[in-house]
């Protein structure tokens, strides 16, 4: 009953937020449809994916500090996007970013299987090492291309204000649909993921192919994270904090936690984007706002636990 009331309240709040986001400042129909709606969709998708994947990684790696970027995908995707920028191909940033994410995924997976032994710790370490390597390359590119520092900061701190070309927008709509389908598949896997928390032996005895499950979660989550970073840069804290908040309210690792986390993540990121656009005379990178909001929330969660 309590959960039902909370759900209804959340839906109403979400609807109100969307209307407020689109209408604030009375921009007129053209700007609402051509500028604000695309931005809203990108914010929704980014928050939706990051929070859902964050939960998946926290469960799969059995690590409360896990988040979508822990396996190095964000650094690889950011590296790809930045290569596009410094080469003078702004419009290819999403393509290059996604290619960077794919490359990272291959490196991390193969590194984690090196020597024939695979486990979550090895996966985590491979991801961290690969992420650190790409971060170093990004630092070098930044130093050698100071004239592009504005764009690089956008990639590293998150930017939902991407100006789409008309053709690029059509591609994004396809990406949106594919991402939502992948998220639905991830939601369907979340039941098995919950069983994984009991340990590999118990999960295997219950008929779950643990290795296959981990591979699927890793691949789907990496593809999704890569797509988000390619379009919106690195937006931190949503994937880390939102699943914890939802679990606090729902008390436990129930399967629908991932779904609720995704919608909560979308809600929070839209709020952060609104703040980023309006709080200062110049628009701030949205990652700065998510960090300022995320940090106190995380301290609160730690104190409660």
């Amino acid at each position, binding site marked *: 009953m309590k959960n039902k009331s909370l759900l209804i309240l959340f839906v109403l709040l979400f609807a109100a937020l969307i209307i407020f986001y689109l209408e604030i400042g009375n*921009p007129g129909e053209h*700007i609402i449809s051509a500028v604000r709606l695309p931005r809203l969709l990108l914010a929704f998708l980014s928050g939706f994916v990051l929070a859902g994947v964050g939960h998946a990684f926290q469960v799969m790696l059995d690590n409360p500090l896990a988040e979508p970027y822990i396996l190095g995908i964000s650094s690889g995707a950011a590296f790809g996007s930045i290569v596009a920028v410094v080469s003078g191909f702004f419009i290819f940033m999403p393509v290059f970013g996604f290619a960077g994410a794919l490359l990272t995924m291959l490196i991390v997976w193969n590194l984690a299987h090196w020597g024939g032994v695979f486990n979550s710790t090895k996966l985590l370490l491979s991801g961290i090492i690969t992420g650190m390597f790409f971060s170093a390359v990004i630092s070098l590119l930044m130093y050698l291309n*100071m004239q592009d520092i504005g*764009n690089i900061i956008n990639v590293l701190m998150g930017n939902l204000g991407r100006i789409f070309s008309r053709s690029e927008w059509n591609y994004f709509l396809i990406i949106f649909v594919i991402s939502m389908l992948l998220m639905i598949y991830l939601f369907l896997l979340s039941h098995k993921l919950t069983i994984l928390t009991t340990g590999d032996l118990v999960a295997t005895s219950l008929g779950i192919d643990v290795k296959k499950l981990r591979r699927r979660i890793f691949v789907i989550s990496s593809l999704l994270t890569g797509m988000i970073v390619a379009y919106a840069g690195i937006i931190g804290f949503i994937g880390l904090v939102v699943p914890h908040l939802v679990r606090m309210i729902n008390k436990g690792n129930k399967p629908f936690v991932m779904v609720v986390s995704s919608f909560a993540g979308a809600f929070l990121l839209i709020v952060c984007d609104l703040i980023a656009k309006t709080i200062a005379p110049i628009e701030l990178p949205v990652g700065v706002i998510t960090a300022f909001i995320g940090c106190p929330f995380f301290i609160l969660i730690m104190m409660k636990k």
Partner: protein
Amino acid sequence: MFGKKIAAGIILVVLLSCTTHRQEQAAKRYVVTSPEVAEIVTLLDGTSHIVGITAECNYPASLQNKTIVGNFGQVSFEKIIELNPDIVFTAGLEQNTLASELHKLDIHTEKIYAQSISEMLHSIENIGNIIGQTKRAEFVIDSLQTAIKSLPQFDVHPDVYVEIYGDPIMSVSDSSFVGQLAELAGGNNLFDSLIREYCRVNAEDVITKNPEIILITYPGMKANDVADRKGWEVISAVKNKRIYTVEDVDPDLILRASPRFISGIKALQKVFYEE
């Protein structure tokens, strides 16, 4: 006898002072780290004294064979020392650290960083005094001031959006050099009151302000790419194909605070008042 001694003495003094003067002239070695200052120094007859430049110092052509000491943001401290300069002309921003490092080694540095037309004219005077070309500097300043006064004036002031970067989109205020040129050329800079000279702007604001002319000042962006931006099809400049890029206006003429700004203004007027 006494007369011969005096004559010999006078000849000796003259010869010595010539040698000293030649030594003083030969002693002037300049390293220039900004393209604006390179243009000014060469205009004031200082080309032969320039021993080092940064990669951006591409005008005039007489600078082609000079030693490169780095690029604007990354100047090699060691390469400058190797050239044994008497004066290093630095600019502002990232080069402030370089200036303080050179200062520690007692190398004479002069910071020249003009951000307006009046500051640039003052720089010409300043540089003229430093390199001993005061009269020439006065002549150049007078010529430029006369050229400013002779610029054609127009009754119509088209609304202009100047874009200096593409992702995120950035424009210029009227405290920037290029913003001032746009206004002098007769345009109405739609973002003249930005809080910084070069500042991120919002696509919504560009669409709402509806510029008649869009001027792109960085390479790699074509007019079609701008016209293709989602939501921008309603902008007057897009509908009337009044989007101009670096192929229409050389960015060096309008972004650099150099004596060529008159050519820059004329290039802007050509696109602003194109029939």
